[in-house]
């Protein structure tokens, strides 16, 4: 019998509180995913992962730790997973996407902090998430002020390393990020006791590129007018990809893509013809944040693309695999990661270009630009995003929300009206 209770006890978790989370997760999964008809068969894998989300993968990580491997918890798509893998380490995403963790975060952070940051702090300090307990080291970064201050607090409880992400994208900033990656590699080598060689880093770059290509294949299918997968299912796949083994992740995404491509050939769609196609842009949606997608897709729309960190920003652009020295490889990594258009950069016109491009590629009828409350950066960018979309004649709805259920009815009203508008 898989004795997860003993595993959770050994991790020092608060079992009583954790059990409350175990009570709400099955309901949400049932409502959001199992209510759908005609889902791809390959979603079985992600259904299993989410059913056993605090069991199977944590047990794998603990087993790896027993073999001497180190687990690095990360919070941002700017942290280069390749470096961790090259030192035989394991990465796992740690961003918190549940309201359940917010109150514990608010014990140490101001209420006026974004829910993702509060949930991430709360998951660690409230001892209700095994991933936050397992990670040997957290790798933070400087992409927002809330995170920076939260990392200082978390750093009192767990080993913490911070990468200094540039705020501009000049040539000297790309060089600076390369140096940050080189410093990170030194730290990872010391922490794991393993040397990073050009051969190992080359292999790691290839592994992560293959994962990116597999995710991109699934997204490519979402461009089809015959939509073979819901936005909810695609989002779940992306969310899980942050903490699954990257080789297995690529295998499973490719298996899903095989099925989706066949569905397109067979004319199998998950929505009736004419369903309005929505692109969602803005702040990331960490697991188990499914609120917006569920509301859109139960209000007559279909989410066909996410321009966000839990979306296209995670897999677009590959790292050059032809480089043969560490110095060249660090530069190739920097060049790839610095193409990611996060709102922490100024200017960030590349994000607008991405949104306009994705609108065309995914045959989008309307855009929902949504940020988590208290995310000043994405909230402020709404001005330029809306203006650009208006100029391009693309309908846009700007929203702000958090992880609580309390605004669901309001969101339903606004999103329902937006889709009605699109329907003409």
């Amino acid at each position, binding site marked *: 019998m898989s004795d997860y209770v003993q595993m959770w006890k050994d991790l020092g978790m608060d079992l009583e509180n954790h059990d409350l989370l175990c*009570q709400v997760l099955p309901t949400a999964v049932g409502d959001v995913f199992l209510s759908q008809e005609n889902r791809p068969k390959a979603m079985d894998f992600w259904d299993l992962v989410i059913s056993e989300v605090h069991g199977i993968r944590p047990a794998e990580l603990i087993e790896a730790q027993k073999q001497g491997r180190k687990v690095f918890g990360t919070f941002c798509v700017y942290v280069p997973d390749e470096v961790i893998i090259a030192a035989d380490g394991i990465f796992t995403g740690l961003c918190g996407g549940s309201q359940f963790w917010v109150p514990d975060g608010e014990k140490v952070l101001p209420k006026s902090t974004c829910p993702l940051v509060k949930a991430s702090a709360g998951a660690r300090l409230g001892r209700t998430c095994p991933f936050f307990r397992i990670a040997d080291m957290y790798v933070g970064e400087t992409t927002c002020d809330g995170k920076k201050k939260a990392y200082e607090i978390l750093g009192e409880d767990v080993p913490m390393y911070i990468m200094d992400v540039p705020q501009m994208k000049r040539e000297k900033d790309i060089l600076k990020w390369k140096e940050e990656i080189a410093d990170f590699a030194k730290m990872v080598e010391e922490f794991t006791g393993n040397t990073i060689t050009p051969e190992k880093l080359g292999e790691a770059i290839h592994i992560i590129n293959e994962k990116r290509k597999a995710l991109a294949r699934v997204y490519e299918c979402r461009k089809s007018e015959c939509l073979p997968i819901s936005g909810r299912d695609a989002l779940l796949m992306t969310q899980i990809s942050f903490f699954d083994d990257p080789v297995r992740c690529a295998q499973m995404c490719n298996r899903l893509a095989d099925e989706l491509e066949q569905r397109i050939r067979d004319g199998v769609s998950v929505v009736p013809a004419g369903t309005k196609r929505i692109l969602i842009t803005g702040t990331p949606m960490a697991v188990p944040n499914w609120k917006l997608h569920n509301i859109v897709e139960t209000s007559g729309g279909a989410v066909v693309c996410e321009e966000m960190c839990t979306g296209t920003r995670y897999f677009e652009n590959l790292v050059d695999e032809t480089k043969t020295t560490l110095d060249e490889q660090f530069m190739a990594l920097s060049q790839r990661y610095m193409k990611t258009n996060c709102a922490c950069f100024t200017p960030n016109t590349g994000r607008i270009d991405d949104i306009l491009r994705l609108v065309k590629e995914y045959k989008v009828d309307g855009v929902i630009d949504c940020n988590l409350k208290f995310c000043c950066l994405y909230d402020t960018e709404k001005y330029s995003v809306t203006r650009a979309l208006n100029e391009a004649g693309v309908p846009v709805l700007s929203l702000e929300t958090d992880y609580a259920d309390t605004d669901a009815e309001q969101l339903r009203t606004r999103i329902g009206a937006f889709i009605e508008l699109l329907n003409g």
Partner: protein
Amino acid sequence: MAEGHVRYYILFANYEQGLRLHDLLDGENIPNRIAPAPRSIQGELSCGMSLLLEPEAVDAARACIEKNQAEYHAIVPLAGQIRARRDKYC
């Protein structure tokens, strides 16, 4: 779909048992889906995975279990578990 709609959950001691039965049911084209086990029926089991059946598939699933001597813990009916517009997230 009616909110009080009854569905059946097959519970397991571990996910390996669940995946074995999932494959057996798939092999016989008996519709079933992997689902998190609702906490209210999970008891002391720490396995989070269950198999979800519509009522019309239960007899065939029982026959498949019997024929293959498949391991499982219990089959439990439960109403009102799935509502797409409930808006209770976690």
